[in-house]
């Protein structure tokens, strides 16, 4: 039996009186790029935190490769965590460590490597995301916004995960930087056969990278292929993808492909 890589069923998340998710379902299949879209405060980051096991939902199941992470013991969860890589919205690089040490930290935690191997592999990951070798010795505070996003991606790739979870990977980047990041992501995804789940607001990124899109509307998720979601009957989704900004970009993207 082949499980979906990520499967969320009947998820309920509540903060006090505020219901964020009410019976949300989501399914991410192997080797696809799945975009999560939603209005501000719709609970995209909460959903990601729930998938990561950082937040225990009030109800529902979150399965990663068939394992319900809301029911796992710490040891089992530890093994699951080695299978995915995460980037956070603002990078969340460890500010006391250099880029190289940031990339090495998950490796030290999960793998048994000699110091030379550790350096070589971490350096490889840094080169892989398009950072110059000099950047490896820098601290996060010395990096530009685009370099932080790349360094965070390098750390997420440290353990050669099969699943990447990215929270707004191109937010705050200029259009050229964002396009370069998208290109890098698509390239890595193809070459390494990754499954990618990303939260994004950037319509360009969605049209360039995603195979399928899930939109959080009214505390649930509507997901479909890119073509399907653009023609979705829900008025909010229509406004999102067929608004003035969207059609201009979407048409251009369509024409380009």
């Amino acid at each position, binding site marked *: 039996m082949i499980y979906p890589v990520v499967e969320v069923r009947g998820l309920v998340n509540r903060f006090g009186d505020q219901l964020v998710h009410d019976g949300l379902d989501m399914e991410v299949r192997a080797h696809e790029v799945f975009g999560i879209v939603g209005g501000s405060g719709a609970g995209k980051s909460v959903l990601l935190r729930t998938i*990561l096991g*950082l937040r225990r939902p009030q109800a529902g199941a979150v399965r990663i490769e068939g394992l319900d992470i809301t029911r796992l013991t710490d040891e089992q969860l530890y093994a699951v965590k080695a299978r995915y890589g995460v980037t956070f*919205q*603002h990078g*969340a690089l*460890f500010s006391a460590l250099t880029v190289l040490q940031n990339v090495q930290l*998950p490796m030290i935690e*999960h793998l048994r490597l000699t110091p030379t191997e550790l350096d070589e592999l971490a350096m490889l990951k840094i080169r892989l995301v398009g950072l110059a070798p000099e950047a490896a010795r820098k601290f996060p505070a010395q990096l530009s916004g685009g370099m932080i996003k790349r360094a965070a991606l390098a750390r997420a790739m440290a353990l050669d995960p099969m699943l990447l979870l990215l929270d707004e990977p191109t937010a705050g980047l200029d259009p050229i930087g964002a396009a370069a990041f998208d290109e890098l992501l698509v390239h890595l995804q193809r070459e390494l056969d990754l499954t990618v789940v990303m939260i994004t607001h950037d319509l360009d990124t969605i049209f360039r990278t995603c195979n399928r899109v899930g939109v959080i509307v009214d505390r649930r998720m509507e997901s479909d292929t890119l073509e399907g979601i653009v023609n979705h009957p829900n008025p909010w989704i229509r406004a999102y993808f067929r608004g003035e900004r969207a059609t201009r970009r979407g048409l251009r993207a369509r024409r380009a492909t």
Partner: protein
Amino acid sequence: MYIAAERRAEELRLTLSDHWRAGALVQLDAALAALDIANAPQIVIDPAALSSLDLAGAWRLRKLIAAASAAGSRVRFAGTPPPQLTLIDEVLGQPGSAAAPGRPAAGADAPLPQHMKPDGTAAAPLVLEDFDFEEPVAAIGKKTLERFHETALGLGFLGRLSIIFLRALLRPRHLRPTSIARHIYDTGITAIPIVALIAFLISIIVAYLGAQQLQYFGAEIFVVDLVTIGTLRELGVLLTAIIVAGRSGSAFAAEIGSMQLNEEVDALKAIGVEPYEVLVVPRIIGLVVALPLLTVIADVIGLAGGAILCRFLLDMPVTQYLTRANDAIGNATFWVGFMKAPVFAILIALAGTYRGMQVQGSSRELGRLTTTAVVQAIFLVILADALFAVLFMEIGL
């Protein structure tokens, strides 16, 4: 000039001029106060000569129109009303005075928030007839529940920490020796100069104070007892702990707190690293090692300070000071002070790391909780010291 009035039979014509801007509100109000709009069935406002109008100016104009309408005048504009005024009407959600001339506009605004009088000034708070007796009771209840919640959180922190600490002891790989070494350096070695200086100064103050008083009885020799026992039992360890609470308690809270704000703690969890294991346990162990060592340094410097003062103020030879000190210090004197150090270290490290872990959301929280960490660390140290004093007295040390 701002506004000029001209009466023609039934009609009052108001010509606006100059800059109606927020910076000129005082002069504008003076001009408006001098204006007489009474007994004018028809008011025509001509904004054509206005050099500029901002929203504050438009707000004054709106009030003028409202006042005129309330007084029974019919107000209209010569030409189109200024767009700023139209914008205000749009924002407030109703067609106000400008769009519908002549209609009474006073009181037609959107409902004002509570505690605001209709003219926009804050109402005097706590007027007796408005006094809401439910509010203070609800506040007490809310605070009580918050305290319970806080206690539960604190217990949760201690419980989780104990489990992770025990696990780390069983599996030494989880003890993070490099991290512990770094914290010993940060909290201990770098604190030596300030701890030594304070210990020196305090022992001099105590010795000087003692010398002055004991001279009346010709008992200067007891200055030595005062300084040595005072330093070893109480002052050395207590002052060191207070300095460390200010230095390292705040640093712990701020470091961990900023990692919380930067999502670094979440990143640790997502990687599969237990944040308590890498952030809290090494800090506690580091401080438990560093504070007793600092205490020894403070004791030595304190005794040396006493010796120097006795030599120069009381002309007491150093050998005599040492002999007397040797007699004054009992077997337990040093240990009574020294054994308090690890306890103080644990209290300081717990207060700092706990408050740091609590930081959520905003940098204002970070500042607040850092302050809380220091205040609580110092409070806990002094409270523990008092308990120790009672305990030692009971067991006769």
